[in-house]
C-alpha cells in the first residue's frame, strides 16, 4: 500500500546493527535508505545495504559520526528528506535536531525542546516531580551550590552521585559512608567535566538491589500518547544493560498497568512526539521512581516489537511524517515473552574488558522465534574504535521458560570465531537459578562474580580442544606425518 510520505529518502546517521535495522524498515516501506560511514566501516553491512552511502571523516571514527554539519551535508547531497539518528551519537543532540529542521529536513525524533528537557537529568526530574509523578529523594547542586554537600547528606545513604549532563553510567558513584562523600563528589565532578564538559552534579537515594524497568512510549504530533508495555533491563554490568526482556517477571498485572500508565502520563505531560523510553528504578517493595527518559529508539526495542507485533521504526517514520498514531491504547496487546541478549566483543572473565579481532567465522543462530540484529559479517573486524556491542540476539517464546530454553539453544548455535564474545557467559547467566526465577537486580552480576569467571574445563573438553588445535596446526601435522608412530606401525603388523 503506497503511502504519501513527505520524504522519499531517509538518511541513517549511525552505524552497526542499528543502521541495518533502520534501513530494513525504510526499504521495506518503499523508501530509499542512505547512510553515512567512516572508512573504518567501509565494508559494514549497512553500507552494502543502503541505496546511497556517503563517506564521512573525522579525527577519530567516532568523531565522524558526531559531526552534525558533515552528516547534514551528506543528507542534502543524496537528496534525503529525513534523518534517522538511531541511538547514541547525535540521537539526543538538540543542536543537531535544530540544524536538520532549519535546513528543511525532518528529524526523526522529538522536538529539540523535548530533547533538552529530558537530556538534562535535573530539569527532567523537576519536570516529572512537578507533574505529580514519583521521583526518588535527591539533592540538586544547581538549586544552591553552597549547600549542596549538606543537602546531599540529608538524602541519606546509600546515595548515588551523578553528573547532571550524564548518561550511560559515566561518572556515577555510590556512597555508603558519608565520611567519603566530599571526596567522591569531587571525583564525580572531574569525571563529569571530562566526559560531558559539565561538572554539575546531583545526588539521589540509592535503592538497594533495585530492578531497572522501563516503558516504551509513542507520541504523535497531534497529542496522542500510548505506552507499548515495559521492558526489564536489570541484568547489567558497569551500569550497562546486557539482557532485556518483556514482560518483566517482577510485575503483577496491577503494577504493570500502574508503571506503564505512569510512563504514558509523563510523556503526555511533555507533549512527547516520537518513540521514547521512560526508565524507572524499581525497589524490592514494589515502589518505583522516575530515573530518566530516553528520547530516541532504544537498543532493546526489539523485545517490544516481538511481543506486540509493532515495528517501532515504522511508527517513528509515520510520526515524523505528521501522521496520527491511528491506534488507541486498547488496540495494543502483548503476547508471549521476548528476551534480548547484547552480544559484546568482550571477555567477562577479565572484568568484561573489550576484545578485538577479525571475524573469521560467523554462523548466526536461526530458527523459530530467533532474531539476529547484527552489524558485523564474516570477514569483518572488531576494532577498539567503537562500542563493543556487535550484535543482538532476540528470542521469543510462548512464556518466559520457553524463551529461556530457546535462548540457550540459539546462544549455543551462535558461532563467532576470531574475536572473543560473551555468548558462553550469557549461557551461564540464564542457567543461574536466580535468573531462571526472574529474581535479579542491577547489582546481580557484581554480587555473583562466578558467573563471569571462566569455568575450569573438564578433561574431555580440554582434550577435544587440544586435538582440534593440534590437527589444525601445520607444523604439528607435518611433523607427525614425517615420523610414523612406532607403536602404531607395530600394531599394523600384528593385524
Amino acid at each position: 500500500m503506497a503511502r504519501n510520505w513527505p520524504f522519499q529518502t531517509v538518511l541513517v546517521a549511525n552505524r552497526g546493527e542499528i543502521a541495518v535495522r533502520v534501513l530494513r524498515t525504510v526499504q521495506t516501506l518503499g523508501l530509499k535508505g542512505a547512510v553515512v560511514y567512516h572508512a573504518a566501516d567501509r565494508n559494514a553491512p549497512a553500507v552494502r545495504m543502503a541505496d546511497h552511502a556517503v563517506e564521512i571523516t573525522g579525527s577519530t571514527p567516532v568523531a565522524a559520526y558526531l559531526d552534525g554539519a558533515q552528516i547534514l551535508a551528506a543528507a542534502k547531497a543524496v537528496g534525503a528528506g529525513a534523518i534517522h539518528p538511531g541511538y547514541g551519537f547525535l540521537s539526543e543532540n538538540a543542536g543537531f535536531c535544530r540544524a536538520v529542521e532549519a535546513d528543511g529536513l525532518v528529524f526523526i525524533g522529538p522536538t529539540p525542546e523535548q530533547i533538552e528537557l529530558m537530556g538534562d537529568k535535573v530539569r527532567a526530574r523537576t519536570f516529572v516531580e512537578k507533574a505529580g509523578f514519583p521521583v526518588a529523594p535527591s539533592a540538586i547542586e544547581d538549586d544552591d551550590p553552597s549547600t549542596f554537600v549538606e543537602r546531599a547528606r540529608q538524602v541519606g545513604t546509600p546515595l548515588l552521585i551523578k553528573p547532571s549532563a550524564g548518561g550511560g553510567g559515566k561518572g556515577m558513584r555510590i556512597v555508603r559512608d558519608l565520611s567519603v562523600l566530599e571526596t567522591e563528589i569531587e571525583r564525580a565532578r572531574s569525571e563529569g567535566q571530562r566526559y560531558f564538559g559539565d561538572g554539575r552534579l546531583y545526588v539521589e537515594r540509592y535503592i538497594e538491589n533495585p530492578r531497572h524497568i522501563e516503558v516504551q512510549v509513542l507520541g504523535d504530533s497531534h497529542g496522542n500518547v500510548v505506552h507499548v508495555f515495559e521492558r526489564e533491563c536489570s541484568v547489567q554490568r558497569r551500569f550497562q544493560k546486557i539482557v532485556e526482556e518483556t514482560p518483566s517477571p517482577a510485575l503483577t498485572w496491577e503494577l504493570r498497568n500502574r508503571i506503564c500508565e505512569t510512563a504514558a502520563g509523563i510523556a503526555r505531560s511533555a507533549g512527547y512526539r516520537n518513540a521514547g523510553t521512560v526508565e524507572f528504578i524499581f525497589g524490592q517493595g514494589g515502589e518505583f521512581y522516575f530515573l530518566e527518559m530516553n528520547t530516541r529508539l532504544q537498543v532493546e526495542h526489539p523485545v517490544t516489537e516481538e511481543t506486540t507485533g509493532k515495528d517501532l521504526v515504522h511508527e517513528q517514520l509515520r510520526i515524523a511524517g505528521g501522521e496520527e498514531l491511528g491506534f488507541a491504547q486498547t488496540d495494543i496487546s502483548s503476547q508471549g515473552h521476548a528476551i534480548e541478549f547484547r552480544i559484546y566483543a568482550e571477555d567477562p572473565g577479565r572484568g568484561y574488558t573489550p576484545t578485538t579481532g577479525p571475524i573469521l567465522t560467523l554462523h548466526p543462530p536461526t530458527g523459530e522465534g530467533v532474531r539476529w540484529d547484527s552489524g558485523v559479517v564474516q570477514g569483518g573486524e572488531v576494532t577498539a574504535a567503537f562500542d563493543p556491542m556487535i550484535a543482538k540476539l532476540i528470542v521469543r517464546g510462548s512464556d518466559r521458560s520457553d524463551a529461556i530454553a530457546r535462548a540457550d539453544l540459539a546462544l549455543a548455535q551462535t558461532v563467532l570465531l576470531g574475536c572473543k564474545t560473551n555468548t558462553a557467559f550469557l549461557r551461564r547467566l540464564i542457567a543461574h537459578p536466580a535468573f531462571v526465577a526472574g529474581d535479579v537486580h542491577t547489582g546481580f552480576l557484581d554480587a555473583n562474580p562466578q558467573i563471569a569467571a571462566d569455568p575450569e574445563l573438564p578433561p574431555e573438553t580440554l582434550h577435544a580442544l587440544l586435538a582440534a588445535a593440534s590437527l589444525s596446526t601445520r607444523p604439528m601435522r607435518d611433523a607427525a606425518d614425517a615420523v610414523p608412530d612406532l607403536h602404531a606401525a607395530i600394531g599394523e603388523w600384528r593385524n
Partner: protein
Amino acid sequence: MHHAFKLGDAEHNVELARARATYRLHVGDARIDVDLKTAPDGRAWLTLGERHVEVVIATRGDEVFVHLDGEAYALRYEHPLDRLAAKAGGGANDQIRAPMPGSIVNVAVAAGAAVTKGQTLLVMESMKMETTLVAPRDGVVAAVRFEKGQTFERDAVLLDLESGSPA
C-alpha cells in the same frame, strides 16, 4: 617433539604422532586416537577415541579458534624456539603494553625521563573508565609510542622502558 598450546593463561604440552590411518595425541598421561575431517564451511567432525563431536575451526597465524559444545575457545600455538627464548629470560618489563584496547587520556612522562617504580606513566581510557599505567620498576623512559587521544588495541606497546640514568 614437544609442542604446546596456550589456552587462557595455561600452557598445555602435547605431542602428535601418526597412528594407522589417523593420529595419536599425547597429552599428560593420556594417549588418544584422534582425527579431524573438515568441510569447506569450517564445520568439522572431530574423533577422539570412540567419541565424535562436531566442531567449527578457524585459524589465523598461530591462533586456532574452536567452537565446541556451544562455546568458542581460542588457543595459541607456541613455537618451540620462542618458548626456549622466553625461558632464557629477557626484560619482560621493558615494554609497557596495553592491558586492553582504549585511548590515551594523558601522557605523564617524556622520553629520557627517569621514573621510579609505581610512578604514573600514562593514563588510558577503556570501557568509559580510566586506568593508570605505572612504572613496574625504576628506569628511564626510552620512548613514548602514543600521543594523547590516540587509540590502540590490546597488547599494543605504549611505552618503552630501559635501565640506566636519564639522558
